[in-house]
């Protein structure tokens, strides 16, 4: 019997839902290790929006469900479940190390209400604090440290939006910000394999609002949202050798506001282009402990993106994008200050920059929706500024990160959705 392409197509159409679910489960079940070598600082990496469709367009977050005013054309209930897998290849000096991470990325649901109103909600990660780092092995020390950080800060979101004239939408959402991180500082004596572990746990809690809006028509879309300052309570517990060392500490972290804007154009039926800009003016971020407020030393950061979508046919779009950003906190390097005796170790802060290329596509699932798929290659780097002091180790840290995002979207109107940005 000879199989024709038509047979294959028919068979693949029937098995696509199973295939899509299988791929999503595979991504969710990949082994967990760590995400970024920079995540040990600040509040961690700002996590992407959690939608493979937007990630393929270089993640203009104002065009994603992170914007409460994006729901212009929502005509039926839909949800998105995303799995995110990340591999980071770090390079410092002559050393290279690969880390991996896979986990659920986000869940979003939205439903239309009468009179153009929309009710929506979801959960997504705002900051990731996953990392896995080994200390160096020095001749005068008979031990190494292995520090494993796990956790992050999440937003549990619920909001309302109102669509006007099927072109404009404004919305607001309440975010319950919560999460936690656990750092295990494993101490390993190299001669006898003796180990002990110091653990630092931090629980985060906070509340914030977000306001957003968008204008969308057949040829042009404009979207943006505003996130007011976030006051975050961080409660820290420390266990030394398995015993609580001191009482819990309470920190109050104040993050300034952030903005995101995006514009999209669709000059033809098959081609779409988008631009995105997100600004984090967080230089004035502060932390308060014991009634003493001090600066967190963050930077004003931004993220810009440009993306394009080409619809080969009405069912099969391909997406490409390029993004560039600076991170809101510094990397650190060290130099010897020989003017002091004995020579002192001086910390040298350095900005972290990131560039990325993004591709994506969608696999339609009849009578269900689509499996959106995106792959991203990001390069992050930081370089200590040149100085007269002698470096105390490598003066740069580079990281190639590969991100695979799979979003299972339920919406029977998936074909229409490609005509618009957002919903």
């Amino acid at each position, binding site marked *: 019997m000879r199989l024709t392409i038509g047979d294959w197509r028919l068979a693949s159409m029937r098995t696509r839902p199973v295939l899509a679910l299988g791929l999503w489960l595979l991504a969710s079940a990949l082994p967990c290790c760590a995400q970024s070598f920079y995540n040990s600082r600040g509040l961690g990496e700002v996590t992407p929006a959690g939608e493979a469709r937007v990630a393929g367009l270089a993640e203009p977050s104002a065009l994603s469900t992170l914007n409460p005013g994006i729901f212009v054309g929502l005509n039926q209930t839909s949800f998105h479940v995303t799995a995110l897998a990340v591999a980071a290849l770090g390079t410092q000096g002559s050393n290279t190390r690969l880390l991996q991470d896979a986990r659920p990325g986000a869940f979003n649901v939205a439903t239309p209400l009468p009179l153009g109103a929309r009710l929506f909600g979801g959960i997504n990660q705002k900051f990731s604090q996953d990392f896995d780092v080994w200390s160096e092995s020095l001749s005068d020390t008979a031990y190494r440290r292995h520090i494993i950080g796990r956790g992050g800060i999440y937003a549990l979101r619920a909001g309302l939006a109102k669509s006007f004239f099927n072109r404009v939408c404004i919305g607001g959402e309440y975010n319950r910000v919560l999460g936690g991180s656990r750092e295990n500082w494993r101490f390993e004596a190299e001669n006898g394999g003796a180990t002990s572990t110091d653990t630092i746990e931090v629980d985060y809690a906070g509340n914030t609002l977000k306001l957003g809006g968008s204008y969308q028509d057949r040829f042009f879309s404009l979207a943006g949202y505003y996130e007011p300052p976030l006051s975050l309570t961080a409660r820290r517990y420390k266990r030394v050798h398995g015993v609580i060392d001191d009482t819990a500490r309470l920190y109050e*972290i104040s993050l300034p506001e952030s903005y995101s804007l995006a514009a999209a154009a669709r000059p033809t039926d098959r081609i779409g282009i988008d631009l995105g800009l997100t600004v984090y003016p967080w230089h004035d971020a502060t932390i308060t402990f014991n009634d003493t407020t001090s600066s967190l030393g963050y930077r004003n950061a931004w993220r810009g993106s440009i993306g394009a979508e080409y619809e080969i046919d009405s069912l099969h779009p391909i997406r490409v994008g390029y993004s560039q950003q600076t991170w809101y906190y510094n990397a650190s390097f060290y130099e010897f200050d020989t003017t002091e005796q004995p020579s002192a170790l001086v910390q040298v802060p350095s900005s972290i920059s990131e560039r990325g290329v993004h591709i994506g596509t969608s696999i339609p699932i009849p009578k269900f929706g689509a499996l959106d798929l995106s792959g991203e290659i990001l390069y992050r780097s930081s370089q200590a500024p040149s100085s007269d002091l002698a470096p105390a180790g490598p003066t740069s840290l580079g990281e190639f990160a590969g991100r695979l995002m799979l979003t299972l979207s339920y919406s029977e109107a998936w074909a229409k959705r490609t005509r618009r940005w957002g919903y």
Partner: protein
Amino acid sequence: MKELKSLVSPPRIGARVVLCLTLCILPAAIVLFSSSCNTLPVGYDQLRDRVSGAADTTLPADSSSSYARYVPLGGSSLLYLGSDTSYVARLIIRFSILDTMSLDSITSFQLVLHQPDTARTMGLICRPCSSQWTESGVSWQMADSFDHWLTPGGDFLSDTLATGIMTGDSAVFDFRYVGLDSALRATIRDCGIGIFPLDTGIVAIYAGTGSNTTTTAPRLLVTYTNKGKQTQRVVNDASDASLIDTVATNSQPFDLLVGSGVAFRTWLTFNVDSIPSSATIARADLKFRPETKYHRTDTINLGVHRLTDSYILKGASARFETTPLATASYVPADSDSVVTIDIRSLVQLWTSREDTLPNYGLLLEAAPEWSPLFRLRIPRSGPNAPRLEVQYVLPPEDRFR
């Protein structure tokens, strides 16, 4: 024609492109995720400001003392016989002689002993032991864990069972057993025999423990006539031990001594209060340079035990953990060698669990105490005195400071 058209139609091309894209992304992701992690220090600089540096400290012994103790030597692989300026040693052996053994056809009854040092000679005499004893509890003063000998050094009858000279790698002695009265034979079966030196100097004789149970262990060789043929039967030793006493320690009253045979133990305490309880002990080495006063082995093994009672309150009766916490070897021929014993885990317990595991100090002793005879003197003061070299690391700082 229709089929060809369907192949190049837009939906078919789109599906192929999407399929290709998917097949590009997924294998790349699988290759990345299947790679294993190494442990190179990439990214550690980002955490260095949260790590408190390591601190080093050297602590002299806060208190020290030494005492001697007669200890059971039944576990040793060597038995000692003889006397010199430092020790006097005899040995006791019990054989598994059946009380039902027929003596009528026995033509000879012989004691066989083996020694590792074939160049040594020693005259010896065997006598019946008159008190029962246990291998695990017998010492110069004790017949077992609870009962003392009537006479220190063992209770023996005056009858001579065998006499001769131990020479070469083994020696055979005619052993009086057949001609003895039944009561004395029963005493020998129950209590064994004692072997006493007749010359000065000390020889080592293989014991019946460990790997020497068959070839070199002490045994009785019984020859008897069976159906007109000369037949030999071996009676193995059931238990044996050395009884050792010290004649002179050749040391000052306040010297710190460590030794085997007659066990010398040294108690040391170190004040670790200067080390924060939250510190992780990276290294804790007990170091000293001993002076060898006596040794019959090329390598001396020392062990450290954690005291569970206060030595100040209970003295030599203070209990300690029987299993050594750490051990180290010392070569007497190398006069420059410093004994270094890793007691990191013990110092970690002292500093981090002071409330439940008080610092009563440590006990330094031979490992094991029935090992070949040696005695070391440890200086109380000076550069060779015991010292504790500690390197510790404080816990990490918070993410936010």
